[in-house]
């Protein structure tokens, strides 16, 4: 299937859309000119638009900086049965993402310059979403000694973490926070005390009690968040806590933030859009991490996103192959594909319900994550890299994970009706994704 696509260096005019750029306080109908890979002009006149420009009619659509994800597993190298950088990139572009921080839990793990460079090289060959490797925090992800953080940073790592694995070694985390101050790169911690969470399958609440399933108690997260925020305060290191999923975590993060401690925090869609009651089906699609919590936690997390206690919504994309998810609930791994549903879930459950404004939503999905990771992204300011998502905010669709571009076909949003789809995704001035409705194909690569 083909449609007229712009050549890689052709200017693009996105016309008549609602331009939302929280970084510059912009939220109005307008016209955006992209030239030579950068945002060239806001509201250029017809005369100022190059004659050879490719036009996108964005009437009734949102024009936003491309989304930035603080941590998706892309699984390559070594876990290609779950996802590859190519399929992960396709999935990200379809979800409106233009930059993705990828987790260090590949095989081999990303604890060497060679591993960082390999991921960057494959991403460049794929030529899709921008991929930024997170280096391991500990050598071999063993939580015993620091990885060679400076060497990893030199090779291109944009931060450090053993996430989604928890960091059980308090002294190591403190040392690393201290050490990282010399390159001002963030450490990402997924807070959990492993001893309290051991063997857990789902949120430790009434539903787990009735189903006889071992629980992941909220205090396992709360205790780790307490440690994290105190260590960040003590070391003045750059710490990002997330994803978080409990009221206790929000409470502590809110309190240290009010004292001016510069930590940041994020939450995953599964903790904003559904509760542990879904596990009553015993369907492993709902076995995700952090686990889906009880409705009271969900409501608190939604409010925390709205009031700024939580800075970012991250996809929590943890793709796992069907043969793994097809096991019983204890053997099936945690994980699901979320890159293609995060934006629509946010629109459906947060924007349409008036919990978030569009501007705040884009801030949480793009502007803030870019700031946390210190990326040249998350804004549509003149001269910024032209990473843009064009969004149809109204069209309803039903989630069918078997049609995901991700290799993973498991979704905690399966069969839900969501509103809003990405119609165009532009990375560095190149139009890399156009929705089926608008073209019938992907143009990436």
């Amino acid at each position, binding site marked *: 299937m083909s449609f007229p696509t712009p050549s890689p260096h052709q200017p693009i005019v996105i016309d008549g859309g609602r331009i939302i750029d929280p970084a510059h306080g912009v939220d109005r109908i307008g016209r955006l000119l992209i030239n030579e890979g950068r945002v060239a002009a806001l509201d250029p006149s017809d005369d100022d638009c190059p004659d050879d420009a490719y036009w996108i009619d964005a009437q009734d659509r949102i024009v936003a900086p491309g989304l930035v994800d603080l941590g998706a597993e892309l699984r390559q190298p070594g876990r290609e049965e779950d996802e590859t950088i190519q399929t992960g990139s396709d999935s990200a572009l379809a979800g409106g993402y233009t930059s993705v921080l990828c987790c260090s839990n590949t095989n081999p793990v990303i604890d060497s310059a060679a591993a960082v460079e390999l991921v960057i090289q494959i991403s460049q060959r794929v030529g899709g979403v921008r991929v930024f490797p997170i280096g391991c925090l500990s050598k071999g992800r063993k939580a015993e000694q620091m990885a060679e953080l400076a060497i990893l940073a030199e090779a291109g790592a944009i931060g450090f973490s053993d996430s989604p694995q928890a960091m059980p070694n308090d002294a190591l985390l403190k040392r690393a926070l201290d050490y990282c101050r010399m390159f001002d790169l963030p450490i990402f911690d997924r807070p959990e005390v492993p001893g309290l969470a*051991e*063997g857990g399958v789902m949120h430790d*609440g*009434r539903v787990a*009690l*009735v*189903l*006889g*399933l071992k629980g992941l108690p909220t205090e396992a997260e709360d205790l780790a968040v307490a440690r994290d925020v105190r260590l960040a305060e003590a070391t003045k290191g750059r710490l990002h806590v997330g994803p978080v999923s409990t009221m206790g975590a929000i409470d502590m993060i809110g309190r240290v933030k009010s004292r001016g401690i510069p930590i940041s925090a994020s939450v995953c869609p599964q903790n904003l859009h559904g509760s542990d009651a879904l596990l009553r*089906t*015993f*369907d492993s699609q709902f076995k995700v991490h952090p686990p889906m919590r009880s409705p009271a936690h969900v409501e608190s997390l939604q409010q925390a996103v709205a009031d700024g206690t939580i800075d970012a919504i991250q996809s929590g994309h943890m793709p796992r192959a069907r*043969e793994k998810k*097809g*096991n*019983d*609930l*204890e*053997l099936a791994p945690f994980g699901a594909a979320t890159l293609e549903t995060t934006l629509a879930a946010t629109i459906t459950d947060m924007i349409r319900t008036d919990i978030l404004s569009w501007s705040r939503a884009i801030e949480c999905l793009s502007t803030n994550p870019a700031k946390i990771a210190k990326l040249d992204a998350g804004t549509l300011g003149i001269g910024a890299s032209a990473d843009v998502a064009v969004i149809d905010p109204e069209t309803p669709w039903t989630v069918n994970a078997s049609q995901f571009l991700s290799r993973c076909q498991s979704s905690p949003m399966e069969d839900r009706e969501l509103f809003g789809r990405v119609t165009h995704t532009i990375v560095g001035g190149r139009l890399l994704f156009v929705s089926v409705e608008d073209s019938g194909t992907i143009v990436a690569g």
Partner: protein
Amino acid sequence: MDTMTETSPLPFPSNWRHRHLLDLERLQADELFAILSTAERLKRLTDGCRRKLSLLSGKTCANLFFENSTRTRNSFSLAAKRLGADTVEFSSAGSSVAKGETFVDTAKTIEAMGVDWVVTRHQTPGTPHLLAREIGCSVLNAGDGPHEHPTQGLLDILTILQHRGPGDWTQASINPSQLLAGKTVAMVGDIAHSRTARSNIWGLKSLGANVIICGPPTLVSPRWEEIGFEVAHRLDDIVDRCDVLNLLRIQFERQHTRPFPSVREYAALYAMNGARMQRAKSDILIMAPGPINRGVEITPEVADGPHSVILEQVTNGIAVRMAALWLLSGACENASSESNSRS
């Protein structure tokens, strides 16, 4: 050979629609009544589960057990054979996982051999529910981890009804949700790891009984109260007002950490012994799902005493399993004849 004329005193309950028996939590009182009254009739028709009928001849029941079991497995096999069905045994404790085959694959393989029911036991909650979605034949849950063990719950309740139910309880004159009204039943012991408890409580509650969940706080979550059950932590506090005590075994094999300091201390707090019998109602019923740990949850004088119905429970196990097999099979046939008549 027995003949089908024996089926005439065995009416098929018009409200029974289920093709699977997965848990008791989601069964209504009238559905519980349908199984229990059918079990009672089948027990009588078979002279106390001893004689053979041919209600299910030509059908095959597969036992697919991923956990060790002797009692439940044999009880299901006997139930199937008493009604004329064939049985086939699959023992897969750990081995299929080791070979990389998922349990769904194993079940589909067995289904392809042409069985009518799969009776399954698995260490993980929800596996029978997953199987029921994946395979076409009837699935009976014979225990899914600590979640449910519906036929155990049913046989316990049948035993209670036989001793403490209204005299004519199998007649439909009584509202099923009032069958055990006014009766207090305590589940005592390792509630946290007990599928027997998780089946009993729902069935008992649906039939109107007052249910007490009793055990140390490390094994009895306070959330049970939020869900609507009475919680007690000392047997001495409740023993004088119970009509039935169901004494659960301590499941050492499921406990990763010791939830109480010693077996001696547990027995001091929770063992049903002669002294506690003195304080109990004169007609108290003593039950245990077995195997029992003599001297831990129950002393020999009580286990073998006149109030104990532990061996009757075993016989009733065959009765409720016969009823379950027959009802699920009938539901399948009704469903297929309905779809045939429509087409």
